[in-house]
C-alpha cells in the first residue's frame, strides 16, 4: 500500500532530474531501472499499479521498468538507478 506514496516520490524525482538535464528534458523515456535491497521495500506490481496511472501523458508514459536486487543493501531504500531515452 505504501507503493502509492513511493510512486509519487519517484515521479517527483524523475521530473526534477529531467528538468535539470538537457539530454533528458522533454525526451521520451524508454526504460527506468530501479534497485532495492533485501527484504524488498517495494512490490513492483503494486508500485506499477499506481505509477502507470501517474505517468499517463508524461514523457515517462511508455517506459519499461527494470528492478535490480542489491543483496548488500540493508537500508530498506528504493533507488532510481538510471533512465534510458529513446534513440534519436
Amino acid at each position, binding site marked *: *500500500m505504501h507503493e502509492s506514496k513511493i510512486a509519487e516520490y519517484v515521479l517527483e524525482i524523475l521530473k526534477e532530474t529531467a528538468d535539470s538535464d538537457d*539530454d*533528458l528534458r522533454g525526451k521520451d523515456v524508454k526504460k527506468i531501472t530501479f534497485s532495492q535491497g533485501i527484504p524488498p521495500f517495494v512490490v513492483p506490481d503494486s508500485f506499477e499499479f499506481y505509477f502507470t496511472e501517474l505517468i499517463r501523458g508524461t514523457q515517462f508514459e511508455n517506459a519499461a521498468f527494470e528492478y535490480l536486487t542489491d543483496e548488500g543493501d540493508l537500508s*530498506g531504500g528504493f*533507488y532510481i*538507478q*538510471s533512465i534510458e*531515452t529513446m534513440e534519436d
Partner: protein
Amino acid sequence: MEIKVLRNVMVKNNAIGGDNRWRLKKNNVFTINMLSSPGAGKTTLLQNTIGKLQEKYRIAVIEGDLYTSKDAQALESFNIPLVQINTEGGCHLDARMISGALDSINLEDIDLLFVENVGNLVCPSGFDLGENRRILIYPLTEGDDKPTKYATMFSKVDLVIINKVDIAPYLNVSVEKAMEEVRKVNETCEIIALSATKPESLEDWFQWIEKESVSALQE
C-alpha cells in the same frame, strides 16, 4: 542514451522528516513514534501514560488512523493538544503529514509528543517522521515468533514493549521467549515487558521516557 540517477526515492520523505526533527528540537520537544500491528495496545498505553505523566510534562498527541477518529476521541478527556490524521486507506504516516500536523500544535508549549502510527507491522518502518525515538508495541497475543517474521520492523526500533503480559498464561507463550526472539533481530534496543491496562506495571516505561527525553534533546 542512459542517464544515471542513483537517488534513493525515500529522500523525498526523509528530507521533510529532517525538517520536522529540527523544528521539534528547536522547541525542545521529545517525540516518540509508536508502531505496532492493529490492536497491540498503543492507545491504551497512551491513556495510562498521559494520565500519569501529565503533571510532569506538557504532552501532545498526533493520532494516525485510516478513516476514523476513535483513538483521538479516547484521549479527548485529557484536554491536551490532539491532532487527528486520517490516511484515507494509506498504511503509514509520512513526514509530510506530520509536518502539517505540527503546524497546528503550539510547539513551544510542549515537552513530549506521541505519534500513534497506523497499525501495521510492515510499511511504517520505512518512513522517518522526524521522531527522536521509535518504539514498537508487541503484544504477546501475536505469538512469540513475530520478531523474526517481521524482522525489518523489529530491527529498526529503539525500544520494544512486550505488552499484555497479564494474559500470558492463557496464550501458551512466554515473556522470556518473546524477549529472546527480539534479541535475535535487534541486539541494541531496550525491551520492557508490561501490561498497558495495568498502571502499576508501567514504571520502567516511565523511566525510559524520562531517561531518553534527556539524552535525545542533547543529541
